[in-house]
């Protein structure tokens, strides 16, 4: 099959800011494409963490998706209107300010 056109886009909201993503992309891909790497803090030492394994093993990529906390962003795919929230407080970076 040969590629025909660019994929359809959907609108997702990352930490309150709306943006576009290709339908069917993984949530980590959308975050990485937006330059958003830190997704959460390690509960033990407070260090910033971001996606590491990309295959559901490390659990470093957990965010809140449509109100469901502890969602692995690497195994979730975006859909129209998806609400994605990272948990990097108390040091939010400019990227998701």
């Amino acid at each position, binding site marked *: 099959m040969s590629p025909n056109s660019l994929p*359809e886009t959907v609108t997702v909201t990352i930490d309150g800011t709306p943006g576009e993503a290709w339908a069917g992309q993984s949530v980590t891909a959308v975050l990485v494409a937006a330059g958003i*790497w830190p997704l959460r803090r390690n509960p033990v030492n407070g260090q910033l963490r971001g996606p590491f394994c990309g295959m559901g093993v490390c659990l470093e990529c957990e965010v809140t998706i449509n109100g469901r906390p502890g969602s692995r962003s690497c195994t979730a795919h975006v859909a129209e209107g998806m609400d994605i929230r990272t948990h990097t407080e108390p040091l939010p970076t400019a990227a998701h300010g």
Partner: protein
Amino acid sequence: MAESEADVAVIGGGPAGLHAALVLARGGLSVVLLDESDTLGGQYYKRRTDQLTAAFGDFRPRGTELIHRVRAAGVVVRTGTLVWGAEDAGRTLFTSDVRTGALGRITTRATLAATGAYERSLPFPGWTLPGVVTPGFALHLATMDRVPVGQRVVLAGTGPFLLPVACALLEVGARIEALVELNHPYRPSTSAIGGALRQPARLAEAARYLLTLARHGVGVEQGARVLAAHGDTQVTAVDIGQEDGGVRQLETDALCVGFGFRPSTELPRLLGCDTRADPTGTEQLPVVDADGATSVDGLYVAGDCAGIAGVHAAGVRGQLAAHAILRRLAPERAPVRLSGLRRRARALDRFAELADRLYPLPTTADIPDATQVCRCEGVSAGEIREAAATGWNDLHGTKAATRAGMGPCQGRECGHIVAALTGRNESWAECFAARMPIRPLPMAATVEGQDVP
């Protein structure tokens, strides 16, 4: 709880499970194929989502065709279904729907575990910084999602897998700042070449990757390694230790580091099958006969979870296990000549052994004490060494004393490193015990699951 029955359950819809399910269903048995991901294919025949396939084409058409044949043969396919526990020699499987958490129980006459592998990571200072990832993650982003993991990327570690990852990154427009291979595989000794020549297809594949890299001006720096990653909120620079002892620092947006794969053996170990140490001495592999039968009657394993040997070996091993199960459950069927499959399996195993020799792992002795080993619980190499040195702390005691391996990933990332750091006897690899549930379950399942035996 939903109950169901099948002659055979195949756990894992990668190359091994798919090939096995096809043979079993064509042999007239009722087969249920379970996979926790929402599509079949496993790591090699991964599926792009429909929307991205429509725009960018089918990533692995051979996988699509294989999946089509499996469905057409009447295999009951249950994706999004995690097998989190098992008992009765694998004849009872406990499942959970990954999306809803709904629990289920499947009763079978035989079970094939084809659960694949994880990537092998080794800790170094800074490896927990956002932007430090596994090569598999970078490959996944590039091939499935068409997103480069960074504009400037450093790739490091050891193993043939680094080459296709580098090529996939180039294809989506990333610049490879450095490709750093710990060993010297690309000027192998004549004896190694002799072994590789019996697998000309694999050799040609590696040559193709190296050619693509050369065309983009990317050289493989051999005998070098990542010493540390630096950055504040995410990785911005990497120290590379060169062969001559020098260290150079590179600026980068992303660092991918991997040391090959580790078999995912929790299910067979949970069922108590005999195990043996793998070539790295930090994993316990199920002991199997030439057909993948374990010491647990009725339980078979195939593919990377029985020992890392790659996609082709996984397919062949899956077929051999399926034929063994057919002989067991439907002996009246005409015997099939399997000598060709057996020969291929042996040749592919020899090739895997060659790869093990070409890409040895570094020792864990030089992991600095301050380096975090357990990412979840933030436990350092020094704390683990100290616990192990108390004299009575074996691997499990060390886990209890330091909490290493007790976090949400349940030791899946660090278990082999904790094992290496606490290991006293090189010939006996310990590893964390497999326990139910073998993966974290959705809360809904835990609540509903109170009546699970």
